[in-house]
């Protein structure tokens, strides 16, 4: 068996919302039965629209929200049994908004040195070396070390965010929409940097993004989430060249295509309406109210995640059916 870096087994994160006095308590199933693996050095793309549970899943992996049921394991060890500090040395996160996720009162040097100090690196020269080394890796100049976040552009701030995530030499980095807050002309710089660092440091990524172009470019495997569940998962080529879930096809069809490559197929694949509330998911297949392929069965019976081909699974009653 291949050694897995991260294993999620039937992970569920439920929140209770409302109160017994006003309309009753409801359960919001933000993540509902997710099973996933990430190997060392692998990049898993995680796509889905807002509210599908991607970010809650990320928080659960970081140990920042407790799972309701199921298990998160790092290096074969349950997250619940691990020291929090040890987990922090294994998993780190790069956030969407580098403006909001850096402390405005800390210089770059302090932002990078604090985690090292907390984790027992106290030698002055070692601290300085590791900070300078990390800054060079992400393309910051040595004289940037004593500046504050407001003195940097968005792209540079994201470089600081990446440096902070990598300073403890983690094995897994969760990138939550790492380029969507950046100017379009800066995004390529950051994507290239993330890919270089992955090779150089042997990192595994979970790349959360709604930009399918970015996900296709960086991912080895891709998981598509809808209303707290994975609806399709497979190698990047299978997901993008041979998607078997209508939701995956709808996401691909929704990308504006200036060349009008396949108008007819696109028109047939579009989803209608909006994501239903996770508080009140539709019976049967959760995608059925929006699905262009909906049949009677879909409103009664929830499709299971089953294999289409080795390593490619989809939760659709019509996963074998040809489209187009």
């Amino acid at each position, binding site marked *: 068996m291949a050694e897995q870096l991260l294993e999620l087994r039937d992970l569920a994160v439920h929140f209770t919302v409302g109160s017994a006095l006003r309309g009753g308590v409801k359960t919001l199933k933000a993540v509902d039965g997710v099973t996933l693996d990430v190997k060392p050095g692998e990049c898993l793309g995680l796509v889905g*629209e*807002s509210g599908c549970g991607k970010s809650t899943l990320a928080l659960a992996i970081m140990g920042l929200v407790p799972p309701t049921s199921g298990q998160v394991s790092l290096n074969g060890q349950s997250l619940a049994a691990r020291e929090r500090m040890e987990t922090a040395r294994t998993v780190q996160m790069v956030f969407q908004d580098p403006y909001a996720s850096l402390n405005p009162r800390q210089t770059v040097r302090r932002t990078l040195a604090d985690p090292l100090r907390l984790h027992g690196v106290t030698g002055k020269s070692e601290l300085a070396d590791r900070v300078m080394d990390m800054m060079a890796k992400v393309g910051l100049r040595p004289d940037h070390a004593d500046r504050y976040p407001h003195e940097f*552009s968005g*792209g*540079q701030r994201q470089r600081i965010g990446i440096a902070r995530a990598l300073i403890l030499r983690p094995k897994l980095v969760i990138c939550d929409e790492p380029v969507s807050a950046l*100017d*379009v*002309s*800066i*995004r*390529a*710089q950051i*994507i*290239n940097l993330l*890919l270089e660092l992955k090779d150089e440091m042997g990192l595994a990524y979970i790349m959360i993004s*709604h930009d*399918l*172009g*970015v996900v*296709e*470019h*960086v991912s080895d495997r891709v998981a598509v989430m809808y209303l707290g569940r994975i609806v399709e998962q497979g190698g*990047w*080529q299978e997901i*993008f*060249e041979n998607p078997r879930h209508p939701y995956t096809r*709808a*996401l*691909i*069809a*929704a*990308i*504006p*295509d*200036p*060349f*009008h490559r396949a108008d007819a197929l696109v028109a047939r694949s*579009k*989803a*209608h309406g*909006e*994501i239903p509330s996770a508080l009140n998911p539709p019976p049967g297949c959760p995608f059925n109210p*929006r699905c262009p392929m909906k049949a009677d069965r879909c409103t009664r019976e929830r499709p299971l995640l089953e294999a289409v081909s080795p390593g490619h699974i989809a939760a659709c009653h019509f996963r074998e059916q040809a489209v187009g």
Partner: protein
Amino acid sequence: MTTPLLQVEDMRIALAGAGASHNAVEEVSFEIGRGEAFGLVGESGCGKSITALAVMGLLRRPLSLAGGRIVLDGEEIQGASAAEMRRLRGSRIGMIFQEPMTALNPLSPVGRQIAEMFVLHQGASWNEAMDRAEESLRQVQVPSPERRIRDYPHQLSGGMRQRVMIAIALACEPELLIADEPTTALDVTVQAEIIDLMRELCAAKGTAILMISHDLGLVANMCRRVAVMYAGRIVEAQAAGEIFATPRHPYTQGLIDSLPRLGERARRGRQRLREISGVVPTIAAYPSGCRFNPRCSAVSDVCRATAPEITALPAGGLVRCHHHG
């Protein structure tokens, strides 16, 4: 030749700062024909949104219109009074903004906000206006409009709110719809639906569109012609189909090359993305000569010394580059 619906000529927008005044937008000229969809693309800070605000007469201090002409249907509107502009907005120019929650009044039911348009601009009675508001909601494909009309904005989803905004903007059948990042706050599948809806409604009513976005793909998909802005100037304008196939300005070229395009990896394997080096300059520090020169891969001495003039391309379209040939 018929006159275009909107002509913007040599527009300049000044930004008054402490002691100094800078031109946030300058030498911006474009035309939009009747019923035509025209796109203005650029990154944050390039001046695309304030260009739209200027057309609507909504520039506020420290921004002000410092020169140029804005002609709507043969009539100069840049000097129009606040009251005249108020009559134009809503009746002849409709607007949609990025974030519908902040553009809608949270204390008023959406039906009333649509109906207000008919009352204010067309002198309808409130009863009649509410009936027409319901019809407007039906046109923007809001399900069960007879109930939704009484909903407040917070009761609607982001996509539904944007549909309400479209209903308000198109209520009085304006000749021009200005849409500033209309789908940026929405999910991709909802974005696709909203774009289709805007396109259908405007085609049916012959409404021209000025679409503003950072997403070149989205704009090229929706519009007939596209202009690209960089650091306060238009650097290129071409037909939407042409701009992707044969971009003539290095900035446009860079934008197209720098984004991973779906299907590209399957066709050609993973290539390193072409980067545009450097950052967008701030208004106070626009470089001399061509404003793109510090980031341009084809830069030469002339680019640093003199700003390129706008040049007409033989196949139609415009480009502002010394080396466009």
